[in-house]
């Protein structure tokens, strides 16, 4: 299968690979997917408690090129956004940006889930209710 140039770029030069201290109160960690499905994403955010701005984001992904590119792009997009703004990122925006074919849409869904899971982890650390997505993915 041919990958788009943007997928190849993110795969070859992934942005924001790494690990944040998951024990920190200001770090939210989202771990989504499953090894037996061939995709696991871990996305972490470092949030400024005063402003709610995501000051840093890191990821590690086990998966195909599209999964790696989707999570790399997700960290790029959420950095500098507030937590609320980050929640507005739609998986179809990722699909469009990376020109993912239909069989790879699940990679973008996973990236969106990873953002939400990281934010929920952060919210729980602050004593807030986790947000439940009512979105139906295509």
């Amino acid at each position: 299968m041919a990958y788009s140039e943007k997928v190849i770029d993110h795969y070859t030069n992934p942005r924001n690979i790494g690990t944040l201290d998951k024990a920190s109160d200001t770090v939210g960690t989202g771990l989504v997917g499953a090894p037996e499905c061939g995709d696991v994403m871990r996305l972490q955010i470092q949030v400024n408690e005063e402003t709610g701005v995501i000051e840093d984001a890191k990821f590690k992904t086990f998966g195909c090129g599209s999964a790696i590119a989707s999570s790399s792009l997700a960290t790029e997009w959420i950095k500098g956004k507030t937590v609320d703004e980050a929640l507005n990122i739609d998986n179809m925006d990722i699909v469009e940006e990376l020109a993912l074919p239909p069989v790879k849409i699940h990679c973008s869904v996973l990236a969106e889930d990873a953002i939400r899971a990281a934010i929920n982890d952060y919210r729980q650390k602050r004593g807030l209710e986790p947000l439940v997505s009512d979105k139906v993915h295509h």
Partner: protein
Amino acid sequence: MRLPIYLDNNATTQVDPRVFEAMTPFFLEHFGNAASKSHAFGWTAEEAVDYAREQVAKVIGANSKEVIFTSGATESNNLAIKGVFEMYAAKGNHIITVVTEHKAVLDTCKHLEKLGAEITYLPVGEDGLISMEQLEGAIRPTTILVSVMYGNNELGVLQPIREIGTLCRKHGVLFHTDATQAVGKIPVDVLADNIDLLSFTAHKMYGPKGIGALYVRRKNPRVKVTAQMDGGGHERGMRSGTLNVPGIIGFGKACEIAIQEMESEAVRLSAMRDRLEAALLQLEESYVNGTREHRLPHTTNISFKYVEGEGLMMGIKDIACSSGSACTSASLEPSYILKSLGLDDELAHSSIRFGLGRFTTDEEIDFAIDLVTKAVNKLRDMSPLWEMHKEGIDLKSIEWSEH
């Protein structure tokens, strides 16, 4: 060295230039129909086909009258299994095969189940091999056919063909083997192995695509299969259709070369394969799938734990090979062959099959070792599973979210 390098010789092989050369006159010059009995065009074609049929028979130790030309191994498998099911309906309706067979065998069996066949699918051990006790235990009075592949396409493991043939003979059951990956790579002998039907194809042994054969034993016992296509009654009535003369000539030449070069090629290929394997096993948490004892000389299948196969393939795109991962398939299911060894899905997802061939060089193997090692290390650096493994976290203890 030209990139990408080709290490997917279990999928198909390059046509050997000597094969190509042998075929060319049969397109423009000797284009006759081998069934035309009334003129020189037909005679020339027939004569060339007769010679090629002998070469093809020789590579499996058969008589040329026992070779039925088909379009390839898929058709040969269909003809063998469906043909026996129809021809021997009076004797029974039970067929024994194996879970790791090619889809051309498994789906043919599934088709026959709808028509009243009873099929036993034997399991394999983690070495990829069947148990002879289980096979013998599965034979019933109504068993008409045992179909077990010679060498596995994904793993390269070789089933105990001679023992299976002996057992089938003892019980008076016909024995078919899909020898697509084995013929031309290792010595195959239908007489010594008591094989009654054998499927093989040209394009896995440096011949052209679109031509294959089914060996159908003529003596002790005389085996017959019901034709699956009606027409002019070619190939002793078992396979109608004008013969693919250039293909047959190429197939014959490919078999002739294989007979001459197989022995030295097998030594050269297994040395290269072993070198590739030894170097890649230097990587932590990498495993060879299937037995390393009984297998084809040119194949290895390795899982690199905590690295996803398709992602790895992208990192080694200068090597043409294939992965047990099926990230692209709608089901997200990894290879059924690897799963049937009892491998965890995650290990199945992490596997790469390397298939070396006649045109593989030492320089290419060096290149492959270097590239795969770098790519695995890079992907592990970005794998959350690798990080967890290094922290001593048991991945099985984690509640994964399905998607």
